[in-house]
Structure formats: structure tokens, C-alpha cells
């Protein structure tokens, strides 16, 4: 796969021990390879070296040419050469002195407020001062002072007195995320990190600077003053907020999650997390947690949910399932673990006897179902982060990585910046994310995507990234499969949710069974499960019972349709919170939130990621697997496992599917409909920070969301007669919404870009999605401010 030639190796002597490292390695890294940690502040392996703090001075007695340096040199900017001999603080008196000197200088102006500083106890400055600092301060005078904390955003707070100006934060924002809204300003001893007035540091990646800060200068408004390192228990787990699969270290205090940090995982998220992953963890502690099972007393319309015993609730659910049998539908959360999904999948097939299982609580179509079964479920050689880094070209189709899969975005940006990757985006709008990738813009109306895909030139070294919204354009996935399979390019499908690849592997699709078995070729699985699957009916169109787990109605193309279904069927709901679905359900089972469970995700790379229990359950909720197994027992068809581990074991035991791969979809694109002057086609994606329920309770984070603005081209605005300053009213099949808007010169004609799920403005509520035709007019504000 990799065409990188073997690096030339050099051998250096560090503190008397030899280390062999690739030529060009920085001395500080070579020292690490030799087991020596040279103290540092500005250095970070993923940021460009800067040599600013000077803490890492080492003595170089031989630069590899027989001559040494007269004075200590910074290890973070010195590249090792073959034969170089250097001494760190471990063996060299001059390095040790130089480091003590620098530490003394840093502490000269650093406030001694460690007892009230959030970083206290986990502070690199504190730790390194203990190791390499002098016991006493020799100089007296007035410290350089600044007014106390300033807010860089609603989320990030800066205490300038504590700042040692290592520039990790500004380098991160410049180099890694491409959001240079924080910069060094002033100079000399006045130098500081600043934003421009009234331009907050609202980056999707802002939390990383808090983690990068080697002192207590940058803190998050979300966490500051709320814990001490020694009060925290840390658990390594995987982020559940998208399909990137980032490793996180989650800190809990008194049984409650208080903070999440990116864990280092070179192959996946390196050292980064997006703000949604980092701060979007409060939903399980906010809203109305369901504490006991509930059953509706009285009829569907007027009855109320009443708390009952587990036995009663299971009885009620079992009765309904017994009655509906094959006329039962299962809708599972895209955030569920592999184990949960597998539990529902097997329960549906072997206990209830239906193939009507789906994890796509979002607009979808049969074309996508076929695509997933054919091209994704059985993937054996998936595209990886590393492959994105070494690719020559990446083409984004229906994919907006900065918002939908932020860590993929960071990896693409890294490859663009460091390895010359070229990115191309097929879209109706040149987004800020595309701008930051320096992407080549191929302007395409959403409905023309199939044609544009057909016109792609795909060479070796090209990777096509398809996002989940592509399914909303009939014919697009078909065109994509046809195009890619006839080329040397590679394809990856990036779902937005953490559990979707796992759900596919668990068979949570109507035509797809676990292990990649198509429902039409299920013998192997029937044998394994000891349950005849061949007779199971296909999907139930109007289910009389619906089993719904962790689903929000707003996710649907038209929530009103969904609500109608929910009002007509008998609904068994598994949820942590009293969601809209739960409120209208007939039986409600309280289930444990993800942080109380163990399990497995597969990220977009199909890489197994493990989810760990972070806090001990505080309520009487059970895991969904446990509830399903109880139900199965009552229905007389035991599920075969009662725990997550049991489900995993059962799933792992599935014999490999050896049959033919299901056929790829062959859907023809729709004929473009002629648009009236005031009509436009919807281009949309989900912004990272929107009305998603996983952000509930993360108020400071939500305050950093991008402004909610519709975007249209000047010509489209003119054609629709939009008046600048007046909101645009967007009318879809099920209603209308009003958006503030702005002109976007890069925008394709006759398209309007709208955020998918802005607070109170979910496109699903008007039945619109990518490619929908909507009509535009001015929402005129009447005198007196009434709309």
C-alpha cells in the first residue's frame, strides 16, 4: 500500500546510549526513543517545531562531524545526524544548568496560584519545575501582570498571566484545524494570545487547545473549577458522537462524567478530538431520565404512562409482540453498540420472526440498503486513516467531513498540508471546510450528483469518500459503485453515527443478516442460530407493533409521518430519556446510557473500537440486551445471551459467509424537474453543532455553534425576489421554515443551502432533505414586530 521508501537511518548517542532513528528526526524525539524525556513546553510531536520556550536545551558534544556546539541547543529543533553525541539533563551538567536557567526564567513571571489553578496536579509546568527547577527564586521584583481571565469564546477561557507563550494553541489553530482565530498579538513581554474583538474562537476543534496547554492558561468554561485530578477516575473509551472512532479519556467525579479528553491513538485520532466529542457528554445527565419501566394505562390517545414493575412491563411488551409477530418493526439507534444491535437483530429474527429491522433513523431508501449490503457490510479491505494520509487524491461526494466526521477532516488537512494530498469536492457550495482543505470545487446541483459522479476521472491513489446524505439522491450511490468498481480508485462510506458500521455487521437491515448473510442466503446463520431463517417474512409495511430504541423523531424526513406511525402502532420503547418517542409509547423500558455500558463500535474504517463503562449505574435501568433476553425468555425463545459480552461472543462465532456478494444497486437518476423561478433545490448537511440531542446540557459548547444562515447565490436570490435583511421562508412538502440568509458567490444556481437540524429549524419538519425542491419567498415582518 505504502510507496514511501525506507527512511535512511542514523545512529546517535544520547546520554551514552545509542539510538537508531530515521534521518531528520528531531533530537527530542530521538531522546524519547532512547527513553529520555527532555522537558519541554512548546514542543509537540504533531505541531511544527518552533523552538520558542527553550526548555529542552541539551548539550551537543559532537554534531556528527567531530565538532560540538559551544552552548546548549534546543532538542526540539535540532535534527540528529549520524554520529551525533548529545547529553540531556540526565548526564550533562551544562544541559541540566541550561534547563534550570530556563525554568527559573519561566517561573519569574508565572503566578504562584497553583492551589486555585485547574491545571494543578496535572500540570507539565508544575511537574517539570519539580524535576528541573531550582528550589529558590533568586530574583525579586514586580511580575508581569494582566487582567484576569478573558474569554476567547463561550467555551475557552484564557488566563494570560499563566501563559508561557509556547504557542501550542495558536499553532494548533493555524496548522491542524485551520481556524486561525486565535493569534499572538503584541510583542515582547506584552505578547499574548488573543482573538480579534467580537470575533470569538468558535472552532469545531477549540477544546484541543485546552488539552494542549502545558500550563493552566487555557481552560474550558465547561470544566473549570469543577474538579481536581486526584478526585477523578479516568476511563479510556471510544467517542459515541460520530463514526470517527476517537479514543477518549473520560474523567468522572463522584460517579458523574465531568470531562472528556482526547486519548492518544496514532492510527485514529492521533491526539485530537472535536468539540462535540469532547464536550457533548451531558445529555445523559440532562433532561428527564427514565428511572423505572412504564406502561400506558388507558387508550393510546388519552392514557398516561404509569411506572410499573419490570415484570409487568415485560409482560405487556411480550403480549404485544406475541400478537403482532411478523408484523413487528424494529428501529434501532445508529449510536447503539454492536452488541445491542446484534441483540435486536437476533431478537427480531429468532424471537419475533421478522426481517423488519433498521438502524437508519434518517432518510434512506432501498438503493442505500442494497449499497450497504453489497459494498459496505462485507468489507474486508477498508480504507483507513493512514490510506487517506498517503492518498494522492481524495474526492468528497455528499460528504462534509468538517461537520460530519471532524477527525477525518483533520487527517485530510494534515495530508494536504504535509503530504501534498489534493482534495476535490462535489458540492453545490464551497464550504469553510473545503476552503481549509484547499479543495478543488466541482460545483454540482444535488440532483446532478449521479451525472457528476459518472464524469469523475478516477486514477490509482484516489479515494472517494461518500457521506450518508448521498443516499438521498436517487441514483447517486448506484452511479458511484459503478464508477469506482470500474476504476483503480477506492471507496469508503462514512456514516455519521458511531454505531452504523456495527449495526451493519449485526445485520440491522431488512435484507441483511449478521455476518453479511443476505436474507436470501441464510442457511449458514440458520445453522449457527439453530433457527430457521428462511421462512421469515420480509419487512412489515404497516407494523402493528414497533420496537424503537434510542431514536429521535426529528431525525426523520418528516417527523409528522413518523409521529403518525407512532400513534397508530403499539410502541415498545427502549430509551434513557423521556423522548418524543417514549412519551407516545405504550411500554417504556429504561435502558442504561452508553457511559454505563461496555461494548463495541466499528468506526468508518471498520476498525473495532471498544467502549468502556465509565460510571456505575445509578438507576434501576438495565441494558437493552438484558431486557431483550428477558422478553425472549417470556416469549419462549431464549436469545442465547444476557450480557454485552455474551452478545459479542455470539456475534464473533458467526461462521463466515462464503456466498456471493449481494448485488449492487442499479437505480436510475430521477429526471430533473423544471423549477419555477421561486424554487430551489436543497443542499444540506448536519452542522457539527446543531440541535442534536447528544449536545443537550452542553450549553457553552452550543454557544460556539456557527450562525444559522441559509445561503443562496446572488442570481438565485434575485430570481426568487429575496429581500436582503428579510428572512427567507423555505416551504417544503410538510410546511415552511424561516431562515436568516446571506449571499454565497460560490453557490450553484437554483440551490439553497440549509443546515439540516438547526435548533427549531429541522428540515425534517418540512419534509425536506438533500435534493428536495423547496420554494422560497420573503418572510415579511409586520409592523409591531409580529411575524
Amino acid at each position, binding site marked *: 500500500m505504502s510507496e514511501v521508501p525506507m527512511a535512511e537511518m542514523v545512529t546517535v548517542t544520547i546520554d551514552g546510549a545509542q539510538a537508531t532513528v530515521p534521518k531528520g528526526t528531531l533530537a527530542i524525539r530521538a531522546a524519547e526513543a532512547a527513553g529520555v524525556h527532555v522537558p519541554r513546553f512548546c514542543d509537540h510531536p504533531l505541531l511544527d*517545531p*518552533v*523552538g*520558542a*520556550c*527553550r*526548555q529542552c*536545551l541539551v548539550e551537543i558534544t559532537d554534531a556528527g562531524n567531530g565538532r560540538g556546539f*559551544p*552552548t*546548549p541547543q534546543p532538542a526540539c*529543533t535540532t535534527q540528529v545526524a549520524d554520529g551525533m553525541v548529545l547529553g540531556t539533563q540526565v548526564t550533562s551538567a551544562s544541559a541540566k544548568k*541550561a534547563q534550570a*536557567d*530556563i525554568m*527559573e*526564567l*519561566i517561573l*519569574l*513571571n508565572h503566578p504562584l496560584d497553583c492551589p486555585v489553578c485547574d491545571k494543578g496536579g496535572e500540570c507539565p509546568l508544575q511537574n517539570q519545575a519539580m524535576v528541573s527547577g531550582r528550589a529558590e527564586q*533568586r*530574583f525579586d*521584583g*514586580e511580575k*508581569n501582570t494582566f487582567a484576569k481571565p478573558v474569554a476567547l469564546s463561550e467555551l475557552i477561557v484564557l488566563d494570560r498571566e499563566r501563559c*508561557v*507563550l509556547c504557542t501550542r494553541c495558536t499553532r494548533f489553530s493555524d496548522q491542524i484545524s485551520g481556524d486561525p482565530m486565535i493569534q*499572538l498579538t*503584541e*510583542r*515582547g*513581554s*506584552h*505578547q499574548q494570545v488573543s482573538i480579534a474583538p467580537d470575533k470569538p474562537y468558535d472552532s469545531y476543534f477549540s477544546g484541543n487547545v485546552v488539552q494542549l496547554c502545558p500550563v493552566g492558561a487555557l481552560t474550558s468554561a465547561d470544566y473549570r473549577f469543577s474538579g481536581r485530578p486526584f478526585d477523578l477516575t479516568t476511563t479510556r473509551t471510544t467517542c459515541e458522537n460520530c463514526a470517527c472512532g476517537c479514543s477518549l479519556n473520560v474523567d468522572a467525579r463522584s460517579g458523574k462524567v465531568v470531562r472528556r479528553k482526547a486519548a492518544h491513538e496514532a492510527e485514529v485520532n492521533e491526539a485530537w478530538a472535536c468539540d462535540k466529542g469532547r464536550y457533548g457528554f451531558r445529555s445523559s445527565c440532562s433532561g428527564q431520565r427514565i428511572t423505572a419501566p412504564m406502561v400506558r394505562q388507558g387508550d393510546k390517545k388519552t392514557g398516561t404512562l404509569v411506572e410499573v414493575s419490570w415484570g409487568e412491563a415485560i409482560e405487556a411488551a411480550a403480549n404485544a409482540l406475541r400478537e403482532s409477530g411478523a408484523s413487528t418493526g424494529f428501529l434501532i439507534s445508529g449510536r447503539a453498540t454492536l452488541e445491542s444491535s446484534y441483540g435486536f437483530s437476533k431478537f427480531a429474527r429468532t424471537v419475533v420472526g421478522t426481517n423488519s429491522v433498521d438502524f437508519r433513523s434518517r432518510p434512506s431508501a432501498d438503493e442505500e440498503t442494497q449499497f450497504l449490503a453489497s459494498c459496505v457490510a462485507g468489507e474486508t479491505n477498508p480504507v483507513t486513516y493512514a490510506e487517506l494520509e498517503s492518498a494522492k487524491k481524495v474526492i468528497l461526494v455528499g460528504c462534509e467531513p468538517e461537520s460530519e466526521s471532524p477527525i477525518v477532516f483533520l487527517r485530510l488537512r494534515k495530508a494536504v498540508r504535509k503530504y501534498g494530498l489534493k482534495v476535490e469536492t462535489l458540492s453545490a457550495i464551497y464550504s469553510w471546510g473545503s476552503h481549509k482543505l484547499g479543495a478543488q470545487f466541482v460545483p454540482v446541483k444535488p440532483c446532478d450528483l449521479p451525472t457528476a459522479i459518472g464524469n469523475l476521472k478516477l486514477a490509482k491513489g484516489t479515494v472517494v469518500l461518500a457521506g450518508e446524505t448521498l443516499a438521498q439522491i436517487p441514483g447517486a450511490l448506484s452511479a458511484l459503485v459503478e464508477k469506482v468498481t470500474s476504476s483503480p480508485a477506492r471507496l469508503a462510506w462514512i456514516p455519521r453515527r458511531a454505531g452504523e458500521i456495527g449495526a451493519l455487521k449485526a445485520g440491522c437491515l431488512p435484507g441483511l443478516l449478521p455476518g453479511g448473510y443476505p436474507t436470501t442466503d441464510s442457511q449458514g446463520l440458520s445453522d449457527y442460530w439453530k433457527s430457521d431463517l428462511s421462512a421469515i417474512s420480509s419487512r412489515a409495511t404497516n407494523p402493528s407493533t414497533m420496537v424503537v430504541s434510542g431514536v429521535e423523531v426529528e431525525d426523520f424526513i418528516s417527523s409528522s409521518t413518523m409521529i403518525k406511525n407512532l400513534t397508530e402502532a403499539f410502541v415498545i420503547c427502549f430509551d434513557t430519556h423521556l423522548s418524543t418517542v417514549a412519551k407516545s409509547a405504550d411500554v417504556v423500558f429504561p435502558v442504561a446510557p452508553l457511559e454505563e455500558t461496555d461494548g463495541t463500535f466499528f468506526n468508518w474504517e471498520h476498525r473495532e473500537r471498544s467502549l468502556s463503562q465509565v460510571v456505575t449505574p445509578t438507576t434501576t435501568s438495565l441494558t437493552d440486551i438484558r431486557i431483550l433476553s428477558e422478553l425472549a425468555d417470556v416469549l419462549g425463545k431464549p436469545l442465547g445471551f444476557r450480557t454485552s459480552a455474551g452478545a459479542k461472543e455470539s456475534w464473533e462465532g458467526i461462521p463466515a459467509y462464503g456466498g456471493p456478494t449481494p448485488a449492487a444497486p442499479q437505480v436510475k437518476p430521477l429526471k430533473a424537474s423544471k423549477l419555477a423561478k421561486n424554487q430551489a433545490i436543497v443542499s444540506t448537511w448536519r452542522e457539527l453543532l446543531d440541535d442534536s440531542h447528544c449536545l443537550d446540557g452542553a450549553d457553552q459548547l452550543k454557544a460556539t455553534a456557527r450562525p444559522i444562515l441559509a445561503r443562496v447565490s446572488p442570481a438565485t436570490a434575485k430570481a426568487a425576489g429575496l429581500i436582503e435583511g428579510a428572512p427567507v421562508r423555505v416551504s417544503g412538502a410538510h410546511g415552511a421554515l424561516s431562515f436568516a440568509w446571506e449571499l454565497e458567490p460560490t453557490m450553484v444556481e437554483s440551490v439553497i443551502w440549509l443546515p439540516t437540524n438547526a435548533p427549531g429549524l429541522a428540515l425534517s419538519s418540512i419534509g425536506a432533505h438533500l435534493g428536495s425542491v423547496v420554494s422560497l419567498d420573503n418572510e415579511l415582518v409586520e409592523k409591531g414586530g409580529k411575524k
Partner: protein
Amino acid sequence: MTTQLTPVLTKNWGTDNSWTLAAYQKQGGYTAIKKAFAMTPEAVVGEVKESGLRGRGGAGFPTGMKWSFVPQDNPNPKYLVVNGDESEPGTCKDIPLLMASPHTLLEGVIISSYAINAHMAFIYIRGEVVHPIRRMRQAVEEAYAAGLLGKNICGSGFDLDVIVQSGAGAYICGEETALLNSLEGLRGQPRLRPPFPAVAGLYQCPTVVNNVESIASVPSIIDNGAAWFASMGTEKSQGFTIYSLSGHVQRPGQYEAAFGITMRELLEMAGGIREGHELKFFTPGGSSTPLLTADHLDTVMDFESLAAVGTMLGTKAMQVFDETVSVVRTTLRWVEFYAHESCGKCTPCREGTYWLVQLLTRLEAGEGRKGDVDKLLALVDLIDSKSFCPLLGGAVACVSSAVEHFRKEFEVGYHTPAWEYLPYDRSALFPVAEEVDS
């Protein structure tokens, strides 16, 4: 034979309208470009190498060698950048050159650009000197109009565009990589080296950065030959240069001489110390070079001889102070200068200059605490040789050399304000009515 002055660069400074193209051409200007165009670029580089011309901005790096580091097989454009950020205290030679004879520099720019295959050159001048900038811009306009810049200069087939860029107030931009950042519209903070500008400079393209005086010396070398240039000066410091004398001398000013002249000779040419006073100390090459006293008057003013006595030739800017001057006061002012001009990038410079100012302020005020002079030296030791760029070296040099020569005077600061010990009004050139206190 007594040492003589050798006006070359300064020769036309006193002539009428010397800044105009007409006057410059009348004096034989722009003949060197024709000679250069008749040579190959490599030959021009060779000639400058052979002349022994060394950088006049302070570091003294051989100019021709710097040019030869430009990788000609690099497909990127090459750039010449002239460093006219002249801001080192005491240094005042480039600004009068830009004002009196901008075409001398421009001719040098054309030849040097030709030598390194640059088709765009920048003349970066500190912003606080409007008139010299005006004259330089005017010279560039005149040259365009006369076909000396632009496409196919004088039928040579060589194209060159020149942009005169004003700085905006930052001493650090005299450091070549900081200057390049400034020229790219960034904060003027120095860059990591390697890569060196010759390989990845302006816009990451091969770039030569040379001082005004260095580039202005090039036409005379091409005109008169490397041998002529090398016939002047000392063994390793060849040619002529402009020495700037300022302070308590009778006739402060610019004195152009071959290397090899001594401080005593220069002082004599400037009429000696002002009437009734005697030399106390002087800087040989700007405030960043360790200061010297009357004991060093016979030192030869070239790169090697000054290094041998523990200082540097620097920018050849001799600031002369007589016995009325408080060395504590001047040291504080210089350190305040470095603190003001510190870019803030690295810890030792940012923190060190801030704390040096505090210590020196209390010594000047007579509020020093016993042991403060040792603290001062301890602080110098903390920061010495640890900074990112040479700026801090200047602060270290002026403090440590001042304490070395005048320790007792610093110790006076434990009890007596400097302005009482050496009343400040006596140093001024005019009667100061009231005593200056702080």
C-alpha cells in the same frame, strides 16, 4: 602613511541632486550593469566572491558565498531582498545612503538580482524614515521610466521588478528571517533555520537577504574589479566601508575608509572628543557589540581585530561617550531598547529583558539592594546564549561589558542615584535648565 578615507559610496553624497537618475548617470552611474550583463550570472557571483565583500549589516558573512548558496536548479522563483531596516542603536549609514544616492543601491540591486537569477527584488526599509523611502521610491520610478527596471533591461533580456516596502516599527525585522516574515505580511518574528533563506526564504523560495551597504558596494566592484576592491582593507576584511561616529565627538558623521583604520584615527578625523572632555567608553559596532574604553583606541576596526578583543565590528557604529556619562543610565536605556524590541517569541529574551530592566531601573535610581550587581550578572548568565535569535545577545553584550568595565559605578546604585553621581545635564549638548530626574 597616515590612514586615509576612501569615499566610494559616500563620494556623491554632497553633490547637487545626487538622488536623481540624471545626476547619478552623469557621475558614471549605471555603467556597471552593462558590464554585468556582458558577464554570465555565475561570473558576477565569482567576481563578488573574489572581491572579499562581506555583509555590512553586522554579521560579516561573505556576500558572494551567500549568493552561491542559492540553488539554481530549484524550480521556484528566486528573490533578492535588501535589508534596509537599519535600527541598531548607533547605526546610521544606510538611511543617508538611501536619501543621498538611492540609485547606487538600485544599480546594486539590478546586478545582484541578475547574479542570482532573481526577477523580483524587494527593498525593505524601516518605516520611520519617510524621506529616504520617498527618494528610494522615486528612484525606482525613474528607473522604470528609463528602462532600467522592468522587462528586458537595457536590451539585456533580463527582467526585474523592484518593490520598495516600508516596515512599521520593529528592530527585530533587521534579523533576516524576521524581515522575510514581515515582508510576507506576518508578525516580524524570526524563523527557524534551517531551512536557510537561500534555500527556502521569501514564500519558501530561494532568497538572498543583504544589507543596503553590501548591495550598494556591488556596482563599484563590478565597475572596478574584484582586485581593486580587495586591494583595500586587511587580510580577511577587504574593501572599504562606512564608519558611523556619533556622540561626544566634535564632528559626528559618516566616514568611509578601508578596513584597517583604528578607532584613534577615526576619532581624530572626527575632531576628537568634544572640547574639554575625555573619552569614557564607546561601542565599536552598535549597542549590541560589547563596549570598549580608551584602552582599545588602537584596535584595528575590522572583523578579526575586534573579535580578538572580545567585541565585534557589528555595523561599524561607534557611539562615543565622554566622562560625564553614566554608564548605568546608558546600559538601562539600551536594555529598555531590547525589552521594547524583543519580539516575545522565546523565553530568555522576553523574560530576561523584562527583568534586566527592573534590576537596572533600581540601580539607576540608587535603590539597588546589595548584591544586585551580582544578580544582574546572574540574570545575564541565565539568558546568555539561550535565545532563539541574536537580539538578546546584544542585551547580554551591553550589560556584561558595562559591568566588566565599570562595576564600581553600578555598585554606586546601591545608595546613590546615577543622576546624582554623574549629573545628567552635563552630558547634554545644550544647557538643561532643570535637573532631569526620573
